[in-house]
């Protein structure tokens, strides 16, 4: 039923764009990228660099991100900074689920991205097994400049709106498929980081 139904079903991308709604989507994406508040998820030494990025020398406030929210309802970007242990994984997923759509995830540091040098039973080998990750920042830990580069990459993606369209179609972030073995001789292919 007209524009309203399109928006309710598919979001702004569902609108058959004319000159007004096209500019409106641009405006919405622009404002989303300029005020993406991060959810604090510092888990290890990467969090120190994340704090340094918020400090006066690098000043995240000029990107509209100075408000690190401890409450997930008010946050848009989750910066997973540090190694995620198996015990922390359900907590991380819960915090992600509590965040309001649209939401994005930056995996900061090699430990969050792939387990890093902690290839053992205690550490999740990449948070994209739990949540859909949009940007990976490499480094151990990534300096503020690497994190800023990742943030700018994310902002560019938010502005284009491509990310949300991709997640809507695949249900996941990076779309990584792994073979999950159940220990009984069987295995199945699982797409990592699927949303609900």
């Amino acid at each position, binding site marked *: 039923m007209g524009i309203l139904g399109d928006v309710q079903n598919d979001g702004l991308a569902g609108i058959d764009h004319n000159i007004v709604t096209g500019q409106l989507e641009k405006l919405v994406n622009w404002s989303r990228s300029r005020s993406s508040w991060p959810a604090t998820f510092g888990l290890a030494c990467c969090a120190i660099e994340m704090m340094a990025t918020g400090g006066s*020398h*690098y000043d995240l406030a000029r990107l509209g991100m100075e408000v690190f929210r401890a409450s997930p309802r008010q946050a848009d970007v989750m910066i997973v900074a540090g190694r995620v242990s198996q015990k922390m994984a359900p907590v991380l997923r819960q915090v992600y689920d509590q965040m309001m759509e649209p939401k994005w995830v930056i995996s900061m540091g090699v430990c969050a991205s*792939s387990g890093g040098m902690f290839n053992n039973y205690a550490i999740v080998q990449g948070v994209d097994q739990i949540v859909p990750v*949009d940007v*990976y920042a490499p480094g*151990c830990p990534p300096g503020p400049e690497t994190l*800023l*580069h990742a943030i*700018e990459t994310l902002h560019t993606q938010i502005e284009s709106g491509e990310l949300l369209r991709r997640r809507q179609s695949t249900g996941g972030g990076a779309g990584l498929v792994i073979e999950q073995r159940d220990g009984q001789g069987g295995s199945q292919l699982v797409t990592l980081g699927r949303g609900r």
Partner: protein
Amino acid sequence: MGYLEGFGVTFRKWGEGVTTREYRGGKTNKAGQIDPRDQKAPKPPRAHGRHVLNRYEDGMEKCIGCELCAGVCPAKCIYVRGADNPPDDPRSPGERFGFIYEINYLRCIHCDLCVEACPTEAITETKLFEFSFENREDAIYTKDELLVDDDGRPQKLRWEDWRPGEDEFTSGWMRATAPAGRASYENRIGWSGELGYGSRAAEQGQEFEDPEPVDDSHDDHDQGGHH
């Protein structure tokens, strides 16, 4: 009245100007220009960053596929396979060359142990660490991406933010210990005929040492037996 002291700090810092360095990840505007305020912090000359695979002056690859870097890597992020050089079209001087060379930058911690381990100074590090990936495939650098180009410069990939000077002086002089681990090599720089911009001249007070013809006997007298 302790808070007045705190205000004092604020007022003292008032006139010191802005400390913020407005790094923006090399974001370009519509004209393709980077904002002039978008500057990185100065880096020390031996900063650890993304790797390069070097080549000799004649274009041959330095990597001989010995897998020492993969063995020493604490994060197990390097995957190397060696193969015999084809006799009619050799890739590297000697018998073997690195057939596959991959580094996973979502595991690499930039500890530089691979640079230390490399016997031919094939793998060294540039000073670039400002890069981020949108998917995991980008993070696995293959040999095509790691190898320097015909000018001896590292290849500049789409998701990397290179600035002038970061691709220079990447040669083996930047390793912490001497080639072959001898303490008598301290303060001497050594490299082996490298293509392009990797090597640098000796600084004042530094001796130049060409490590190619290594003669183990010639520095025994000042070090007193190293084996």
